[in-house]
């Protein structure tokens, strides 16, 4: 008999979710779906508030990547004032974003995913967590915890607190980097470099044995999207959008983030309320794209820092053109930690970070402002519209996790089909399915606190798959 198995809740992720696995009459997997079960409604209750409050409100969407919302919100505010912020303020915002990449990626790898990778899929569920890791791999766990702590420390040194700092504002930032904080971070760098190098070596060593797994953990062709510098170098805060395909070829490049609606549209399937963003010129099938660490490493021409560039070469050998398995989000995440540390080391030598010129001031000079930044899990857009007094008339937040929704669904279905047969479901099988979600390190608080508003394409298919009706909205 056809049936449905629900994994509730999905654990070791940020946010609240369930997974349904649908079985056919023979007990084989016919499909799987990923459900996000929290909803807040920021795009409604922020209306009528001053846009300057958004740097305080939107980081509360999430405790894991609040800095992403803080920075995207501040950038949207810069655009409403139509100012270029002082160079030192831009450098300081970048430094905070790098700190966040380190802390969030370390959390994803060590606290959430390493229990599967190091203790094994079949380890007893009661041990399969960061505390189990602390018991079995004490030094590695401690090093991972301290690596995350370093990233949090970068944020705290700049913003005064680790989570929800009120620091970046429209026009710039409120405080420079002090000497004491700079020296503390510099003294800590050798330890965190050693941690990430050792972890990369350990992880690389496990890859040959994981080749079979990587082929069923969400391995499929798709486009990849993220920000890159004008010369194609890896970006995390400035730059413009680039799309590449599964063969590694550039599909679109240097698109201004404010024009995102020209390249991103969403399709809705009549059988589901899940909306799936896609690269508009290619349509909903061929236009599916992924964002986040895997995408950023696939789209960039180089990391721009020596050690991470060396590692990028090894990473690229895992694919032909692009690395297409979602399992390799983990490896990409570790490489991004290394790159972030190299960039942090470079930034800490820059005397500009102590500058007193940190904030531009202006009135309302543009009725719409878009701010984009690379959150740890992918490209984040804040798109605000205001009236003449700066009160919000429209709020749209396009978050990374939403953009990966289609890929996450395809990943859990691929894993479920591979491991679940004959209707026999075991706990370790379910854990593998959940791990498919962990690969993406989704931030579910973000994904439904904010629902995007993009050009939309609806296709109604009949039972033979023929298109019955199409509708567009720009």
């Amino acid at each position, binding site marked *: 008999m056809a049936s449905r198995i629900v994994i509730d809740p999905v654990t070791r992720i940020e946010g609240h979710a369930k997974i349904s696995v649908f079985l056919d009459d023979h007990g084989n997997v016919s499909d799987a779906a990923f459900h996000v079960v929290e909803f807040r409604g920021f795009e*409604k209750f922020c209306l009528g508030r001053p846009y300057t409050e958004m740097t305080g409100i939107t980081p509360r969407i999430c405790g894991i990547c609040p800095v992403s919302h803080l920075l995207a919100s501040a950038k949207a505010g810069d655009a409403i004032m139509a100012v270029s912020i002082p160079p030192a303020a831009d450098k300081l915002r970048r430094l905070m974003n790098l700190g966040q990449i380190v802390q969030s990626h370390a959390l994803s790898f060590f606290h959430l995913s390493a229990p599967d990778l190091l203790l094994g899929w079949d380890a007893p569920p009661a041990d399969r967590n960061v*505390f189990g890791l602390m018991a079995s791999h004490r030094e590695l766990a401690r090093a991972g915890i301290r690596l995350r702590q370093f990233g949090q420390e970068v944020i705290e040194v700049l913003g005064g607190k680790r989570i929800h700092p009120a620091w970046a504002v429209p026009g710039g930032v409120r405080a420079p980097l002090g000497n004491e904080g700079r020296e503390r971070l510099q003294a800590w760098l050798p330890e965190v470099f050693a941690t990430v190098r050792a972890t990369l070596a350990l992880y690389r060593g496990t890859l040959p044995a994981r080749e079979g797994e990587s082929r069923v953990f969400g391995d499929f062709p798709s486009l990849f999207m993220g920000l890159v510098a004008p010369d194609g170098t890896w970006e995390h805060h400035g730059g413009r959008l680039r799309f590449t395909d599964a063969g590694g070829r550039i599909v679109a490049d240097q698109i201004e983030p404010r024009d995102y609606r020209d390249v991103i549209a969403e399709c809705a399937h009549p059988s589901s309320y899940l909306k799936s963003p896609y690269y508009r010129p290619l349509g909903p099938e061929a236009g599916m794209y992924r964002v986040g660490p895997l995408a950023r490493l696939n789209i960039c021409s180089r990391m721009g820092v020596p050690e991470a560039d060396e590692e990028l070469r090894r990473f690229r050998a895992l694919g032909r053109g692009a690395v297409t398995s979602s399992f390799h989000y983990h490896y990409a995440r570790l490489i991004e930690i290394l790159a972030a540390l190299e960039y942090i080391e470079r930034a800490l030598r820059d005397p500009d970070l102590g500058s007193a010129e940190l904030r531009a001031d202006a009135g309302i000079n543009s009725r719409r402002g878009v701010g984009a930044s690379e959150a740890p899990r992918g490209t984040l857009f804040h798109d605000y519209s205001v009236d003449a007094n700066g009160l919000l008339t429209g709020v749209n937040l396009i978050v990374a996790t939403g953009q990966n929704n289609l890929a996450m669904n395809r990943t859990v279905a691929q894993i479920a089909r591979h491991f679940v047969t004959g209707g026999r479901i075991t706990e370790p099988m379910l854990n593998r399915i959940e791990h498919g979600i962990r690969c993406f390190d989704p931030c579910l608080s973000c994904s439904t606190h904010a629902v995007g508003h993009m050009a939309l394409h609806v296709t109604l298919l009949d039972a033979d798959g023929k298109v019955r009706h199409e509708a567009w909205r720009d």
Partner: protein
Amino acid sequence: MSFLDLDEFLFEVAEAVELVCSPLADGKEYPSGVDLCLIEGAVCNEDNLELARRIRARTRLVVSFGDCAVTGNVPALRNVLGAGNAADVLQCAYVEHAAPGGAVPPPDGIVPALLPRVLPLHAVIPVDHYLPGCPPSASRIKAFLAPLLAGGAPRLEGEQLKFG
């Protein structure tokens, strides 16, 4: 996530407690006879409400952890929209900001219905302790947990009792 900012103090926590249910661990069922539960977040939907009640029935000490649990905080901003706010925010996200033919996810037993108003935790279950902050800093969490782990009662005062 602020809990993880305890950093290496986590090793001491790990020695002193047995973690039975957490977003960080894989136990899916909340067991009976639990000594202490830290509950974060406002009560926004039917699932939250049901879980809060289940936890209360099975737990000796319940802590309202963070400003959202203590006051409702940012999630409760939708209450300001008045009666019908739950329908309004869903309408905004899934219909006005969505497709032609967009619709609010239907009740299907998977996606929980929103409550008419977002509530602080103590409005739905009795709470033994409050730990404010958005989020409570690691030092505040530590100051709160250390006496509990030693068998005493937590006592926060002054600087440690601020919101935000």
